[in-house]
């Protein structure tokens, strides 16, 4: 009887230890994530799309029909540009995407995040990021030197401010065409990041590795 009890306790202990071993093993099971001999090119940036507008100067009658606080020297209507992204590795097209701004009207900043798996080694990388619309941005038609008489009174200095604002917006937007043609060396398991430098206004490969 006592022997059976000892055997039972021993079995219970063995089962407990086995259960704990299974628990500990299941707690950290090595499972593959990426291939052993892979690398990647990652394109990542955020930028404002260009605004494509058609502008006109309203007539005097149209201006006077509005309250003073609502009068505009130039009225613009338009939409945000869309972009075509083409990525070639050693001349082979690996990515061909249309990139739009965020939001329902696509007028919010566009966020690009694309990763292309590659074999490690030296690769020629060609990236082209081009505006798909032909129209010139911020085109102002029919403003005829911006109606100087309107640039007085409460409009004083407004023309200059508008020009400055348009210039700022254009500078903030991604250029109509971005290209990069370079040769990069990809180490095993290495991700090479390619991004848009808003100050230099061109595509760059940042030198440092981030956390």
């Amino acid at each position, binding site marked *: 009887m006592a022997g059976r009890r000892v055997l*039972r306790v021993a*079995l*219970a202990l063995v*089962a*407990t230890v086995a259960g*704990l*071993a299974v*628990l*500990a093993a*299941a*707690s*950290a*099971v*090595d*499972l*593959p*994530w*990426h*291939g*052993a001999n*892979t*690398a*990647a090119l*990652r394109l*990542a*940036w*955020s930028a404002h799309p260009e605004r494509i507008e058609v502008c006109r100067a309203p007539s005097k009658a149209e201006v006077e029909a509005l309250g003073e606080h609502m009068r505009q020297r130039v009225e613009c209507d338009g939409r945000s540009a869309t972009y075509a992204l083409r990525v070639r590795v050693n001349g082979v097209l690996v990515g061909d995407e249309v990139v739009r701004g*965020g*939001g329902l009207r696509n007028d*919010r*900043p566009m*966020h690009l*995040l694309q990763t292309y798996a590659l074999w490690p080694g030296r690769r020629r990388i060609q990236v082209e990021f081009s505006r798909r619309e032909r129209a010139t941005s911020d085109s102002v038609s029919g403003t005829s030197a911006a109606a100087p008489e309107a640039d007085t009174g409460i409009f004083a200095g407004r023309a200059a401010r508008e020009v400055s604002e348009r210039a700022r917006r254009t500078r903030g937007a991604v250029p109509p065409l971005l290209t990069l043609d370079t040769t990069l060396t990809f180490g095993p*398991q*290495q*991700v*090479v*990041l390619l*991004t848009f430098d808003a100050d230099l206004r061109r595509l760059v490969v*940042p030198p440092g*590795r*981030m*956390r």
Partner: protein
Amino acid sequence: MTRPRRLRLSRPALAALDAAANRLYGWRWNPLYQSGTVAVVALLILLGTGLYLLLFYRLGAPFASMARIDQDVWLGRWLRSLHRYASDAFIIAVVIHAWRMFAQRRSWGPRALAWVSGGVVLAAGLVEAWTGFVMVWDSFGERLAREGARLFDALPLFSEPISRIFSGEAAVPGAFFFVNLFMHIGLPLGLGVGLWLHVSKLARPTLLPPRTLSWAIVAALTLAAIARPAPLGDAADPLRLTINTPINLPAAWWLPWSEQLPPLAVFGVLTMLVATFLLVPALTARARSGTLAASFVDPRLCTGCNQCPQDCPWEAITMVARTDERPTLVAQVDPALCVSCGICAGSCAPMGVGPVGYSGRDQLDALRMLVLPELRAAVVAPSVVFCCAEAPASHRAALRARGARVREVRCAGNLHSSAVELALRSGAPGVLVLACPPRDCAGREGPKWLGERLYNDREAELQPRVDRRRVRVGTMAAGDLRGTLECYDQFARDVSALAPVVPASELDLTLECATAVPGAGGDA
């Protein structure tokens, strides 16, 4: 309606597992019976170890602080491992608990809230584990974070895709780790609310296992943490493609599959899983009629003693004002809360409450019709064994083969003490009641109330005139046929050593009880 095959298989599979655990640990220490309370113990370990680890966690350097905890902090590595293993134990215990409730058909009707809230607790536990692993910010944490970001980005929730955080353009912002930590600390509050909802419809919920088992669980997990500390993966690096990551299977078993599917497919599968889980109470529901009808109260017999509301494990009975001129209150059963366990039938001395066919009067009638004629006709009357209907059929068959007269009751707590007395008065040398293990009782408190009624004078108590040496309560656990038979054999030996029973003239127990109640007939 034919039950799907997987529904029919789940119960035998659970019984087989229970049987194996009973053989190893005995029914008193079978952790499978304690799955719900084991989850609570794991949760308490998580809270304790988590608070300690939090002291050393740094939002600005998550992986570095984890590495420091692992290497420099006093007990850091072991407590981190204990935290990890407790989280695994929590998830496994909750899944086993859900399986048990499903297999034992305890997931519908009044138990639907417990089922749904249990599902919420499990989901919250999985999300909690997710945030915990991301906090570590090793390669597994990065993998989880990337997958989460990929899934969230498919939803029109954020103006900027979350995945951009992990592009490697810039360091992962501290705000991300702050939100993650906030969730990791905040979710346990949600778990607490879920747990409260889970037991809100129970009277006297049991939240912890027996103290010895609680400490045994703590000790076992601590030993595992010391013997095999949970490994820390490589530091997360957005600009490096990690080949292998140490995945935590209990919390992230879904990850390798999820990564292969488009986000919408993942959401589709998730929606189906959640919908199926939520529909289980409806899919497994059975008609509340016949033996599953709610208990009824015969107001003519109810003396307003207030015992059945105290004994009901589901708080389904309340005392309300009577509509007749009698000065007492009368019991009222809420069918929406009653699970037809029949425990109220065993609590009522005048036998005025219980499920259809299982009230005290029904038990006496059945004994008179089916058992007593056999006892009287036998040269040597056999002992009567009352078994819970949930008990293994093989045990019942083995007892019959031993010569016992086996009579099933819905639950040990359903057995009325008058049935025990009637069997003895009719010539049975002894009455053995074999109940399920207390933590496996479908009626929750059947064995507990049975013992109180037979031995401690709880209403409806076994009368003092009954020889207690001829009455015994045992436990009938799956996989422990030897224990069941030993219990019966020992009882039979003890009873045979007593003087032979002379059958008393049968009292009309029903009438005896009913005459105390004005206006009630003996045949009511």
